[in-house]
């Protein structure tokens, strides 16, 4: 078995996504373990710093370039990657489990007949095989999965695999101009939520729930998030009440997150919410009700009135940050 490994590098606005660096490091580590090789593939128009992938163990990166490919096109990306994988005989593909990776990896699985392990939070190497661990039932259980087909695709949850510090190595760039990509499905525009950090990508999340008592009090969440450089999240109760947009919902029918720090304000911790955030490294809960289930998963809790505690917390953090 040759074990040719390919990592897909995602770019947005010509910048490499952090989740792709994480995937690149995993790909090169497994190339070493499997005595194989790891290359990278990216698709886009102008992309900065591609040679920096060398710092994560990638020797060569192929850039498929066309101005119509600056934004994602599911049809074009699928066709181009399928051809690249088939022409070059890759067996193992790694993706970041981002909105793009989640859309793309399954399509490739159909095209190249590869078994699929999505949203992996751990990959272990046992008896010469890769065993993927992934949360199921929104993290209420963990499944260990083995891919039995020759070709394999692993999509890695962002923020879980540490890419470490880059070495000074530079990757060789293989630039290929693409003619007439298949734009049957095409992104024509992107509407950005102004200045908002997404909960799925954030290192720190400050979330608010029903305890905020109304949308007019969410400035407490936003102010604390702002001093921490954090994303704002919300419980399902707050979203269903129309207080916050659905994109902020954390939990089983919202986003499953694993930030370094999760601060829950006025969130009781319904089972579907806990499922979505319990894998956070550190959890802080501020809630009036001492019996709230959120305290069972919190590292640090304050059983008190968030309206009194949160402004003080925001001020304290502002002090140490300045």
């Amino acid at each position: 078995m040759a074990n040719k490994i390919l990592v897909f590098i995602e770019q947005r606005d010509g910048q490499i996504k952090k989740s792709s660096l994480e995937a690149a490091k995993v790909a090169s580590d497994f190339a070493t373990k499997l005595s194989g090789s790891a290359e990278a593939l990216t698709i886009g128009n102008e992309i900065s710093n591609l040679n920096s992938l060398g710092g994560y163990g990638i020797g060569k990166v192929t850039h498929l370039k066309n101005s119509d490919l600056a934004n994602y096109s599911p049809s074009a990306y699928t066709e181009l990657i399928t051809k690249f994988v088939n022409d070059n005989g890759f067996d193992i593909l790694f993706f970041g489990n981002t909105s793009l990776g989640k859309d793309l990896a399954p399509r490739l699985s159909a095209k190249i007949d590869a078994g699929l392990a999505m949203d992996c939070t751990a990959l272990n190497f046992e008896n010469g095989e890769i065993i993927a661990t992934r949360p199921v039932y929104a993290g209420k259980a963990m499944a260990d999965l083995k891919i039995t087909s020759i070709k394999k695709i692993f999509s890695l949850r962002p923020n879980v695999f540490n890419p470490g510090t880059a070495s000074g190595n530079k990757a060789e760039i293989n630039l290929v101009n693409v003619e007439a990509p298949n734009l049957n499905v095409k992104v024509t525009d992107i509407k950005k939520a102004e200045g908002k950090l997404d909960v799925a990508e954030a290192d720190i999340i400050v979330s608010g729930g029903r305890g905020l008592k109304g949308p007019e009090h969410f400035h407490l969440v936003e102010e604390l998030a702002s001093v921490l450089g954090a994303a704002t999240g919300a419980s399902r109760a707050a979203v269903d009440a129309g207080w916050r947009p659905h994109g902020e919902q954390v939990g089983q029918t919202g986003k499953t997150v694993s930030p370094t720090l999760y601060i829950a304000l006025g969130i009781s911790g319904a089972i579907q919410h806990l499922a979505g955030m319990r894998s956070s490294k550190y959890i802080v809960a501020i809630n009036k009700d001492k019996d709230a289930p959120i305290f069972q998963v919190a590292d640090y809790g304050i059983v008190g009135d968030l309206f009194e505690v949160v402004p003080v917390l925001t001020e304290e953090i502002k002090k140490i940050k300045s």
Partner: protein
Amino acid sequence: MKIAVCVSHVPDTAAKINIGSDGKTIDPNGVTYVVNPYDEFAIEEALKTKEKLGGETVAISLGSDANKETLRKALAMGIDNAVLLKDGGYRDSLSVAKALADEIKAQGAELVFFGKQSVDYDNSAVGQITAELLGYNCVSVAVSFALDGNKITCEREIEGGKEIVETTLPALITAQKGLNEPRYASLKGIMAAKKKEIAEKSPAAATNFTEVIAMKRPPSKQAGKILGSDATVVPELVRLLREEAKVI
């Protein structure tokens, strides 16, 4: 136009999950199963599209007899016909998609709706795989959908914003919360659904490319320290976050 909607039957999000005695599946005892929450948005979008443009709707589900409950719910909401692809054992995403693609082709559906993921295995994969197998255009995680003649425009949720995606029929769309407000089944709908026949078919045998070797509980999280009950403990909290957790 024929519109298909694929639905799955999953544990309620409020359900507590225990590991089964085989150590590879969950214990279904005491678990209530419901229509996959994202599939309700898919059903609603199929109904809205039919109401606007006419045509016929069919709901398809792969699984055991228990899935009939979810198909009945789709019928009660207003879906015209239902098909159960009867199959018991484990199927991975690719194997589920193959069975669904066969049936969608047999139905001749030009427009297909899925939920963006089933809240059991959480792969977010079956919709996109099915589309590729059918050769249909596909937009996943749609929060808006508009069909004008042959042309489809969707908004698709991404990190920190939305992509505007354009494509054409035949197409498969996977639904995200926010796409619409699913209707409640009317009493009349519920009564009518009870009388409707659910077609049963046998899908092609599973060809799995993955194997679950173990199912475990997530690493348990120890309840931590309650620091106090008012703002006087805030400096202590900040100190712990800086010195013990080293996160700020």
